């Protein structure tokens, strides 16, 4: 490859203006720690007094700051288009629910700041129904707080007025059918360090066909769009072993599993080792389409055919245990998104070429004794572990 042209192109992608400016220097010198007193004769009292003034100023600034607009960088105003909400769409009370939903989704995927989101909610005549601290987590010396806020967008009645929704959150389907509410929206905000960031959004509304639709958007590494399920409260009808497996993951009773549970199911382990033969999953493909959050799959003496697995859009890790995959031909179609594959306790007797057919794979656990040309995997940059 032409070294110079690649270099120029990469620099064009990053930006043609210099990234390093005097502002970086000024910022460093403002923050640079003072290692020792240059003038040891200065009385300690002066230092204490200065610290008091600085801390008082900081406290005053803290009280006066709109934390939703807080910048962690002095240069943010010039350089952060990411959190800028696009011009808010103009809401029209007469427009169909689906159009309003699409406009809200557009704003949500633009990763708005909390204050900008509030402006949009006001424009859509939404009201906050409930807001609570849902969780806290400590990591890297910082405390992260997760806030859940429910908003209601009420239907307009014949006289053009909107009534405030006062029912439970999330609202039941009947509330939508009775016209008490048109759209329900739950937003999760994470407050950490000096930032408040949108973490997750869930929207509920009634489709034109009268189905309750739940759409969910998470801001995380899977980089997906909104996921969606129809009639999320409908119970799931599947084989008992799978229902029990799902129930273990979501911590519910097997006969209470709903389509919403499938939507948010992140890990699934099916253990059929107590059975005499191989347990082959053969269920309605719609249920696999609903598993839009499934990330980790472990199959012990069980197999899900590739034509079903391929409907699971964000599967990342798969483990096979037992005599189910002598090669990967039956499942490879459904494993094209995985980055980790564990075959160490499986009956796999295939070749490096079989494994290399999984295009996203980075790490494979496999016994080198059964894959004689496993060095080929390493040559291709794959991390081979045993």
């Amino acid at each position, binding site marked *: 490859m032409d070294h110079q042209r690649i270099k120029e192109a990469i620099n064009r992608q990053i930006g043609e203006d210099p990234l390093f400016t005097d502002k970086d220097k000024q910022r460093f010198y403002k923050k640079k720690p003072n290692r020792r007193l240059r003038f040891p004769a200065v009385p300690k009292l002066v230092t204490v007094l200065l610290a008091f003034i600085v801390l008082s100023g900081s406290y005053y600034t803290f009280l006066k700051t709109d934390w939703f607009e807080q910048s962690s960088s002095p240069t943010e105003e010039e*350089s952060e288009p*990411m959190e800028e909400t696009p011009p808010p769409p103009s809401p029209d009370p007469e427009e169909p629910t689906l159009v309003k939903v699409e406009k809200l989704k557009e704003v949500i995927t633009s990763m708005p700041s909390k204050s900008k989101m509030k402006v949009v909610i006001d424009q859509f005549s939404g009201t906050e129904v409930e807001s609570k601290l849902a969780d806290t987590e400590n990591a890297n010396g910082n405390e992260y707080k997760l806030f859940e806020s429910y908003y209601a967008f009420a239907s307009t009645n014949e006289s053009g007025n909107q009534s405030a929704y006062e029912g439970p959150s999330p609202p039941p389907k009947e509330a939508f059918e009775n016209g008490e509410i048109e759209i329900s929206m739950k937003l999760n905000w994470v407050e950490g360090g000096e930032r408040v960031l949108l973490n997750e959004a869930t929207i509920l509304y009634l489709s034109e066909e009268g189905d309750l639709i739940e759409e969910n958007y998470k801001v995380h590494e899977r980089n997906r769009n909104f996921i969606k399920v129809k009639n999320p409260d409908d119970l799931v009808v599947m084989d008992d072993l799978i229902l029990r497996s799902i129930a273990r993951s979501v911590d519910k009773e097997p006969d209470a599993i709903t389509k919403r549970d499938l939507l948010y199911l992140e890990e699934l382990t099916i253990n059929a080792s107590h059975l005499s033969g191989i347990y082959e999953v053969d269920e309605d493909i719609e249920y696999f389409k609903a598993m839009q959050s499934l990330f980790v799959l472990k199959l012990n003496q069980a197999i899900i055919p590739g034509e079903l697995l391929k409907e699971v859009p964000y599967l990342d890790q798969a483990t096979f245990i037992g005599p189910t995959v002598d090669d990967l031909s039956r499942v490879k179609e459904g494993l094209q998104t995985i980055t980790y594959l564990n075959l160490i306790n499986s009956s796999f007797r295939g070749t490096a070429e079989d494994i290399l057919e999984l295009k996203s794979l980075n790490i494979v656990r496999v016994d080198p004794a059964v894959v004689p040309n496993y060095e080929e995997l390493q040559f291709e940059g794959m991390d081979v572990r045993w």
Partner: protein
Amino acid sequence: MSGHTQTHYTREQAVEYIMDQYGETLKRTIFTYVKNHHTTDDIFQDVLLQIYRKWDRFNGDSQLKTWAMRIAINRCKDYLRSPIHRIKIATDKWREQKAPNYTEQRVVQKEQWDEIAEAILHLPIKYREVMILTFQQDMTQKQIAEATGTPLSTIKTRMQRARQLLREKADEGGIDPWIINE
């Protein structure tokens, strides 16, 4: 500034020198990891502080640029593993944050190179870093191994794999394969 060790220079002088000589380079490298200008600014400040604090430990065994680069790379990887990154990741948004004078007018050949650069910036991190450090930072494979703390053999393998991934991207369309196979 030859000799670049703490016996010759104070930490203030060292940071000043690194900012002047490698500030742009370090910030561009940081950007290729985090793909966000605002985060790049913050991480760059952290890197300068670490250089300032660790200057006593720089013994001159490696080049100053490689040493500074290693601090920057490690800080970027720490950031990518952090919870705050997981919740704010917006890799698909980063293109919106490019400098405002990013030109829209290119000849066809130039677009091809931009397609490759974009493909490189979308590679998984371990392949992206070897491509960026090779092509954008002009580092040798030995220097990359040193800066990333990775065995030289692994760097060679990753380079091969990165090229293969780009070839696959070319096969999918959008890039002339000859550019990568050159």
